């Protein structure tokens, strides 16, 4: 009780006297940034997943080769979720022109749960969206099937044992992405007609899907409820499975967001460190007096820890509230960008925010507090004793440990965390060492300088610890601001440029070898020239095209001597990959959106037989560099060693392959060809013409998907910029804390100097010299580190190329010198206008 009473009184008075403002600001800012991002990503990731759900026409799907047991749909409905189902299988339709292989999809009236079907009344008619499939007795077909069947809308075709009327041209289905490279044209029918076809029996090969959609938390509850006991023949599918482009864009956006939070955490951490140091230092006299008055060590410790915890808790709660308001503002701002409502945030970010606040505060303030308990009561008599000298190693270790814990926790990615910790440790260590060196140099120069220059530079050298602390603080602040510029402007631009306006929006697949040349001719005549480069062309160009790639189907049957069987893999994705045919290709040159991560690319047409494998799939299937892999291609075994692992930028929308061989491996195998190109909206009629001339070619319009990914990028960029506002505030706070740290020491010194007759103007100039020098040192170091960290992040983390930015240096070095010089001088100016006697007396009695 006694402890609490004293604790609360001290806390209350600390607050009223303004002692805690700086520490509170730093802490609130940290927690606000963490919770805002927590709340926001919680909601945005939910919304993105839902919007991504349009790619599978649901939020979640269950797939099986046999009908999905009814209990799964019942369970979903019991949770208030919507369900729909369809069956997808290969069959043949008959018309007057003969039989034609088709991919049948029989849907129930609820299909699709997410997204829309696009249909047309005629080849030239505009697309109309609809949210339900064909009525009974009707079939909707792809345009190319009309050509293949030599039929028109309104004609009847035979599917199995029944006749169906061709009701509309199906130009898009939301979950088409999954079947993007299906060979046979699509025919969509009503589920009630399925029985009449007599095509599906228990033993038929078909893909049965149960679609589920609803409120995000319920979907999640459903997913976790069934995931553990899912039989092997059932597979769960979500949006990320459906399309790697979308998943890649979402993942990159959330990486950026996490990075923004981490930078805020680091910078605000520096502010917390500076502020706690100052807070604890100012408690030294109070502790000495309380020791004199008989307060035992354990009571003081209890009071200080309780005071810190109570303060941390209140500040963290305020931070959570601001974080919540912050995300609310952003969500309102972005609401119309989402086609679905943003799901409400969970409470987890509050817990994360509170824990972060308390952990950061404990890490930075507890070690100095423990030192405080060692204060001798004699200090009340003799101020010259100074604060107790605690173990600097302990302080740094505990703070570093707390920071490392927070980084690992917040990054949610060990690799990112490890890199950041190493980067920050390296940066802080080098910063401190270089600052020490430069401060010494400033001291040397001061010895030779005269007047205000001597005063200013000597001020830096006289307090090496203070100067190191101050300049490091300023450096970290500037570093944050510069990083902000690097990440916000340069990195985001690099990311957005990754998906330029001219990115391919049409895929042509199933191109027969004999069609390659005529097609190239057609494209050239239409202004769409086939190119050797896969690099998307400049957006201003009328039409862009990519090279035409060969595509060969092959099943992976062996890795070294080990034969590959789907049942060998516990990972469902690996199991799926092992069970289906790969789209293989061969090439002489590496595509610009691919990067070799291990091994090397071959050169020339006659390079030895070898494979290059995408690193993700290599990891899933356990393929390592040097392994001999064997594919079964057209009944023949094809083997070659893996000589490189590639990183593929799937969100570039170029044609890409998991496995590519040197020409000597696959050039002789039967292949179809594939290409992608950009077609402006106003030239859409070209597609109809192309379909007419090359009826066997399938045209895939991925404009909608492209737009969706682009939206993720733009939205992500906006969210990240918003989060960086917190970093900006944290950076400014650190700079303020850095300047503030030296104010007290200065107070007495200025009093004395003025008593000795130094004029205000001279003191002001000496201050300007000191702060400008500090700004120059801090700015130079920060620019070096910002450039380095930005480059590392771009290359290592995001796979982007960053160009040198001279304005970064200009602003970093000169801007900092100017800004710090000005801000420091303004901040310390009030000291100069105080009467010297008061300045001295305040400095003497201050502290307690």
């Amino acid at each position: 009780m006694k402890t609490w009473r004293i604790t609360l009184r001290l806390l209350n008075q600390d607050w009223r006297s303004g002692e805690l403002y700086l520490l509170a600001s730093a802490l609130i800012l940290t927690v606000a940034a963490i919770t805002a991002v927590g709340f926001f990503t919680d909601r945005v990731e939910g919304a993105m997943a839902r919007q991504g759900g349009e790619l599978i026409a649901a939020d979640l799907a269950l797939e099986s080769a046999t009908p999905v047991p009814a209990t799964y749909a019942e369970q979903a409905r019991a949770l208030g979720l919507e369900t729909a189902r369809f069956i997808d299988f290969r069959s043949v339709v008959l018309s007057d022109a003969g039989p034609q292989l088709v991919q049948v999809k029989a849907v129930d009236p609820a299909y699709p749960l997410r997204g829309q079907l696009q249909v047309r009344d005629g080849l030239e008619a505009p697309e109309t969206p609809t949210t339900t499939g064909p009525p009974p007795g009707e079939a909707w077909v792809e345009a190319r099937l009309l050509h293949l069947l030599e039929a028109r809308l309104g004609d009847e075709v035979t599917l199995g044992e029944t006749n169906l009327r061709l009701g509309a041209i199906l130009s898009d289905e939301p979950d088409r992405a999954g079947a993007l490279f299906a060979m046979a044209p699509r025919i969509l029918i009503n589920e009630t007609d399925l029985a009449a076809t007599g095509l599906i029996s228990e033993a038929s090969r078909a893909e049965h899907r149960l679609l589920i959609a609803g409120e995000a938390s319920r979907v999640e509850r459903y997913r976790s409820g069934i995931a553990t006991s899912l039989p092997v023949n059932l597979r769960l599918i979500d949006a990320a499975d459906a399309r790697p482009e979308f998943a890649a864009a979402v993942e990159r956006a959330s990486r950026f967001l996490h990075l923004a939070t981490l930078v805020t955490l680091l910078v605000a951490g520096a502010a917390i460190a500076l502020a706690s140091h100052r807070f604890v230092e100012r408690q030294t006299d109070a502790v000495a007096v309380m020791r004199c008055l008989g307060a035992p060590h354990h009571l003081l410790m209890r009071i200080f820890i309780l005071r810190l915890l109570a303060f941390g808790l209140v500040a963290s709660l305020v931070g959570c509230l601001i974080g919540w308001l912050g995300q609310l503002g952003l969500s309102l701002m972005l609401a119309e960008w989402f086609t679905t409502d943003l799901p409400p945030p969970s409470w987890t970010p509050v817990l994360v925010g509170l824990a972060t606040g308390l952990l950061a505060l404990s890490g930075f303030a507890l070690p100095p507090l423990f030192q405080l308990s060692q204060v001798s009561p004699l200090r009340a008599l003799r101020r010259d004793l100074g604060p107790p000298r605690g173990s600097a190693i302990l302080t740094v270790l505990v703070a570093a440990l707390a920071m490392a814990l927070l980084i690992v926790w917040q990054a949610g990615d060990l690799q990112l965390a490890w890199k950041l910790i190493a980067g920050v440790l390296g940066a802080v260590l080098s910063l401190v060492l270089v600052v020490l060196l430069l401060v010494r140099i400033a001291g040397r120069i001061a010895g030779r300088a005269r007047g205000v220059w001597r005063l200013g530079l000597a001020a830096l050298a006289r307090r090496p610890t203070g100067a190191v602390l101050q300049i490091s603080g300023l450096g970290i602040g500037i570093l944050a601001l510069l990083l902000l510029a690097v990440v916000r402007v340069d990195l985001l631009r690099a990311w957005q440029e990754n998906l330029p306006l001219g990115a391919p929006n049409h895929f042509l697949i199933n191109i027969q070898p004999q069609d390659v040349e005529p097609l190239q001719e057609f494209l050239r005549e239409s202004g769409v020239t086939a190119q050797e480069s896969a690099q998307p062309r400049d957006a201003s160009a009328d039409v862009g095209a990519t090279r035409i790639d060969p595509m060969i189907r092959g099943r992976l049957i062996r890795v070294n001597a080990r034969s590959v069987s789907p049942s060998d893999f516990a990972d469902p994705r690996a199991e799926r990959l092992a069970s289906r045919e790969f789209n293989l290709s061969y090439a002489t040159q590496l595509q610009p959106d691919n990067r070799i991560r291990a091994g090397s690319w071959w050169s020339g047409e006659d390079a030895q037989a070898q494979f290059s494998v995408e690193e993700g799939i290599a990891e899933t299937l356990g393929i390592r560099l040097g392994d001999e892999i064997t594919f079964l291609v057209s009944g023949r075994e094809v083997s070659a060693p893996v000589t490189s692992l590639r990183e593929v930028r799937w969100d570039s929308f170029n044609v890409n392959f998991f496995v590519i061989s040197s020409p000597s491996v696959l050039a002789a195998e039967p292949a179809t060809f594939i290409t992608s190109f950009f077609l402006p909206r106003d030239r859409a009629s070209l597609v109809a013409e192309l379909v007419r001339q090359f009826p066997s070619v399938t045209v895939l319009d991925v404009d909608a998907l492209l737009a969706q990914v682009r939206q993720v990028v733009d939205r992500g960029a906006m969210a990240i910029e918003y989060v960086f506002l917190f970093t900006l505030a944290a950076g400014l706070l650190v700079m303020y804390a850095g300047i503030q740290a030296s104010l007290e020491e200065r107070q007495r010194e200025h009093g004395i100097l003025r008593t000795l007759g130094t004029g205000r103007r001279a003191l002001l100039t000496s201050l300007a010299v000191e702060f400008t020098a500090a700004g120059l040192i801090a700015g130079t170091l920060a620019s070096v580190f910002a450039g380095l960290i930005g480059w590392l992040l771009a290359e290592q983390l995001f796979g982007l190329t960053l160009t040198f930015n001279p304005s970064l240096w200009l602003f970093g070095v000169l801007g900092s010198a100017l800004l710090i010089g000005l801000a420091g001088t303004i901040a310390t100016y009030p000291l100069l206008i105080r009467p010297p006697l008061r300045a001295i007396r305040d400095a003497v009695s201050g502290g307690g």
Partner: protein
Amino acid sequence: MSKAIALGKHVTGPSGGLTILERLDLEILPGEAVAILGASGSGKSTLLGLLAGLDRSSTGEVWLCGERVDDLDEDGRAALRSGRVGFVFQNFQLLTTLTARENVLLPLELTGTRDAAQRADEALERVGLTARAGHYPRQLSGGEQQRVAIARAYAPRPEVLFADEPTGNLDQVTGEQIIDLLLDLRSEAGAALVLVTHDPRLAERCDRRLHMRAGHLEAGA
């Protein structure tokens, strides 16, 4: 009340050893007012710190309120000081974040005194600062700050009060008011008073005066 037997204090620094006090004997009786005078650096503040149990001696014994303090660790000495020993410092040493009243309350709350609030108010009234109870130290003059410090020292009704240059930071008139207050309160509380001072007027009004010279004590007139 406070006793030192063969007290010695030696320190070692980068430039070698230094003897601050050497074989010093001293006894302060209950209720006695003793002034310790001496030039700067003669060791009088060190002696005060040792007698009050704020520091440890190198040799000899120190007794405070009937207990030997040089055997105790810092927490044991703090427990001994708590409520039984008062302090007044040259630079007042008020907690700047607490009001005058809260500064006086602090030692009472630390010792868990039941009627702390009432005793704090009485103490402030006794030093004539009831009207300024809600003010912070920076809003008070030097004399007022020292009066708050005296109220804080006497509020727990200590057995002995140690004062280090209590008038050192004050002008003559204020200094005299503070001397009056210190001595009056000492009489009322019946506490012993040990004060270190340069001020002959203050020393003059004490029961005994001792002079420190180069670590040795000499009885004065």
